[in-house]
């Protein structure tokens, strides 16, 4: 360093030095038009379609008769009905999150620690609800336990069986969301170094003592983590409460009812803000408080494979539990295609193709529309996710932390809130998008992108940046580095992002129910209205086709990818 420069470093305060650095960084960005273009585009998209709609909801919630007012909030407080809805949502969220975590933990422990037969099949069944369309379980629950259900009416002869309401909702949500807890917990259990537990055993602890003094305490942050994740999903869930909630209304449903049903958008905004606060604060607790508390990462790398527990007194009860739950889940999936061939469930069990005839005739439009829009949204999501992941991890620029934070937080934003925000924001000039296919595509992209970004970031973090630096030292432009080095290296993340984006778009309900129109009706919304009208047969056909489309698309992509040399294990969902 020359004397002159030394003097500068001495004279300036730390703040001034930081500003100098920022300016230098900006100069670098401005000298690279493609990078600059990408940054501006991403900033615009994130602001317009994530931040702006939320800001509008917040604004709207404080306006009553064109003036600033807390009227909408005091209305919620005044009407005991609305208060009940908030309590309902929280009660459901807490119950489901506790039960799901228990079931998920049992599955995870059985999978990671115990010698059980057919483990792969059981694990597969356990994660089915994650990749399958909503209402599959809700619909099956109706077929099994509804007024005309084969178990309630058929076996027990109950005339007034009530699946609709709190209990039915808990059952359906637990079955839908316990896989979330399972996946989180199994990952953590597998990261516990077996030698820690061996050390405990070696020092005289029985199996039970090892579990209660070592395994469980080590997992405590992870368990809380899983419970919070399920809680977030439960309170944000729209499809199940809509289909099976009956009189037990939750906030997500009420936002829709008030906004679309009673055309009282501003009334819905206050509720939306409260729902948003609930799920975002749960998310922040999970991310920033628990995220740092993990003991599991402290135990270091797993030194050897775990000796699976083979003692009968452990294996037998766990096996029975896991197998029973799996059979139950499996049964719910088999029931849907069966239901699609039944004339009138509960009344006339004769076989028919009438429902299929209807769907492939009058009812085909939603299938076509959904496929078309999802096909457009999928590649956009894939590329956008990888670009954002790359920018956030590998480039320095003003607004990086903003993009990182907003896209992460958007994982926790309930779909109904986003839907409401889009309706309020894009139904008037300057930008009228409601009723178009474009807003649906945007919704698809925005709802699946955050997960894609996270998986892209995770895989980028594992790749040494010096590989990209080497390319640019050899003369590659920033676009060339991205396309010739980065993308090939994070190919698995990109492709699993594509599969996820497609499945997610095909099965999205909460956001798009605000946005569908006569011009574009989507499969999930159509299914839901069929259930609503009691046309279980047609709903079953739609669900069956949805399962087939998503399933075969996943299979097709896996096949195509294995031809391209991406290994099966890299394509996770």
């Amino acid at each position, binding site marked *: 360093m020359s004397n002159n420069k030394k003097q500068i470093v001495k004279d300036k305060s730390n703040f001034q030095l930081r500003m100098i650095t920022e300016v230098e960084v900006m100069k670098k960005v401005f000298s690279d038009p493609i990078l600059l273009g990408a940054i501006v585009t991403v900033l615009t998209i994130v602001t317009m379609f994530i931040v702006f709609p939320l800001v509008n909801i917040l604004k709207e919630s404080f306006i009553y008769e064109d003036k600033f007012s807390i009227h909408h909030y005091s209305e919620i407080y005044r009407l005991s009905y609305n208060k009940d809805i908030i309590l309902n949502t929280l009660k459901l969220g807490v119950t489901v999150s506790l039960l799901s975590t228990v079931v998920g933990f049992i599955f995870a422990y059985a999978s990671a620690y115990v010698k059980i037969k057919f483990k792969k099949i059981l694990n597969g069944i356990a994660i089915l609800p994650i990749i399958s369309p909503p209402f599959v379980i809700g619909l099956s629950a109706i077929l099994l336990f509804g007024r005309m259900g084969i178990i309630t009416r058929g076996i027990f002869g109950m005339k007034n069986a009530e699946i609709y309401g709190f209990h039915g909702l808990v059952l359906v949500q637990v079955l839908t969301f316990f896989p979330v807890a399972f996946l989180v917990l199994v990952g953590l259990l597998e990261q516990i170094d077996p030698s820690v537990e061996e*050390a405990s055993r*070696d020092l005289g*602890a029985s199996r039970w003592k090892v579990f209660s*003094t070592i395994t469980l305490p080590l997992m405590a942050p992870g368990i809380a983590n899983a419970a919070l994740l399920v809680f977030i999903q439960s309170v944000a869930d729209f499809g199940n409460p809509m289909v099976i909630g009956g009189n037990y209304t939750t906030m997500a449903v009420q936002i829709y009812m008030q906004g679309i049903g009673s055309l009282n958008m501003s009334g819905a905004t206050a509720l939306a803000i409260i729902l948003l606060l609930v799920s975002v604060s749960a998310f922040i607790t999970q991310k920033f408080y628990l995220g740092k508390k993990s003991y599991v990462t*402290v135990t270091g790398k797993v*030194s050897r494979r775990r*000796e699976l527990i083979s003692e009968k007194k452990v294996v037998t009860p766990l096996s029975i539990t896991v197998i029973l739950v799996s059979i139950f889940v499996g049964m719910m999936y088999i029931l849907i295609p069966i239901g699609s061939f039944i004339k009138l469930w509960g009344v006339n069990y004769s076989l028919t193709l009438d429902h299929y005839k209807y769907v492939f005739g009058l009812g085909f439009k939603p299938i076509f529309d959904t496929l078309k829009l999802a096909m457009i949204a999928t590649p956009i999501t894939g590329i956008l996710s990888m670009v954002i992941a790359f920018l956030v991890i590998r480039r320095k620029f003003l607004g990086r932390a903003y993009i990182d934070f907003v896209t992460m937080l958007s994982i926790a934003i309930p779909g109904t809130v986003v839907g409401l925000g889009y309706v309020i924001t894009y139904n008037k000039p300057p930008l009228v998008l409601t009723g178009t296919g474009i807003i649906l595509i945007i919704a698809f992209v925005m709802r699946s992108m955050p997960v894609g970004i996270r998986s892209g970031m995770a895989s980028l973090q594992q790749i040494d940046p010096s590989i990209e630096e080497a390319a640019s030292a050899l003369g590659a432009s920033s676009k060339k580095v991205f396309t010739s080095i980065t993308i090939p290296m994070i190919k698995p993340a990109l492709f699993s992002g594509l599969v996820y984006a497609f499945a997610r778009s095909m099965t999205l309900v909460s956001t798009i129910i605000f946005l569908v129109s006569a011009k574009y009706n989507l499969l999930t919304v159509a299914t839901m209205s069929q259930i609503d009208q009691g046309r279980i047969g047609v709903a079953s056909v739609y669900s069956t086709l949805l399962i087939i489309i998503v399933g075969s698309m996943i299979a097709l992509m896996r096949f195509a990818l294995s031809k391209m040399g991406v290994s099966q294990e890299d394509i996770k969902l």
Partner: protein
Amino acid sequence: MKKGISIKNLTKVFVINQKNKVVAVDDVTLEVKPGEFVTLLGPSGCGKTTLLRMIAGFETLTAGDIYIGEENIGAQTPDKRDTAMVFQNYALFPHMNVFDNIAYGLKIRKLPKTEIKQRVQKILDLMKMNDFAHRVPAQMSGGQQQRVSLARALVMEPGVLLFDEPLSNLDAKLRIHMRDEIRKIQKEVGITSIYVTHDQSEAMGLSDKIVIMKDGVIQQIGTPREIYQKPINAFVAGFIGKTNVVEGKIMSTNNSNYEVDIQGITHMVKSDNKLSVGDKVSMMLRPESIIVEGEQYDGIVTKSMFMGENHEYEVKWNDQILQISESNPFGRDIYEIGDTMKIGFDEKALHIL
């Protein structure tokens, strides 16, 4: 309580699938006296860790018996055995501080609180770790963590202390320091110890007795000196330290004294092997036992490398390359590649394999 270990015809077979199985420990018989420090040494996959884990109770026995003291423990679960283990990756409980980590086993035994406190305190004093008592593992270096791991095992006052490559995750300097410390404390406490390592210098420095293993079979049991100077076969000779193998022919015998001809020069070699005149023999010769400027043979230098405490050469001699290590090469020019070197053999160091 010092206890001996007696291992009889111990075998462990891992069945991988219908067709493949691995015999990890193959008919091993071993006696360890009370208070003795025995090292199991061998390349990775030789079965040393499996043997240790069988003693601890983490692997079931396929055949054979293990006695600790008078008791046959083969069928006992790990928590019932009078052993304590120090793990390669420390295996400290991350959710407990140092004190609670060390006290864990005593609490499991349901000892009175005051006694637990007293015993943990004694160990903390012994290991000079009082300042760390309230730290959690994540706040400590690898070396400190391994000391806690050792303390946690010692506090149990077990009949047998087991070490599973405890130093392999530490850096070189710390490894030597910890090695000396382990030896010192083991001597002080006088506990029977079995130590697994693949590092021969660790084994040499620590052990009363070294057990060399290969492919699940014990090759040789002996003191470090015996193992180094009188290896039973080429594998042991090669595994412990660098070695040269030279060929020769027996010219005459006189009890256990043999005259051996190596490339036309006769050397006197002692051996317990039964050999007769005319037998061809392979002999081990350590690099430091070859004398530079020994005036017996000529060789051409093919490698010359100054290592600080010694100078290493490779010398082409007849059809083979000899490794030579000369310590303290002061006051003489070193040999460069291509130079001719006069060398001689230290007869006492020749060991017939």
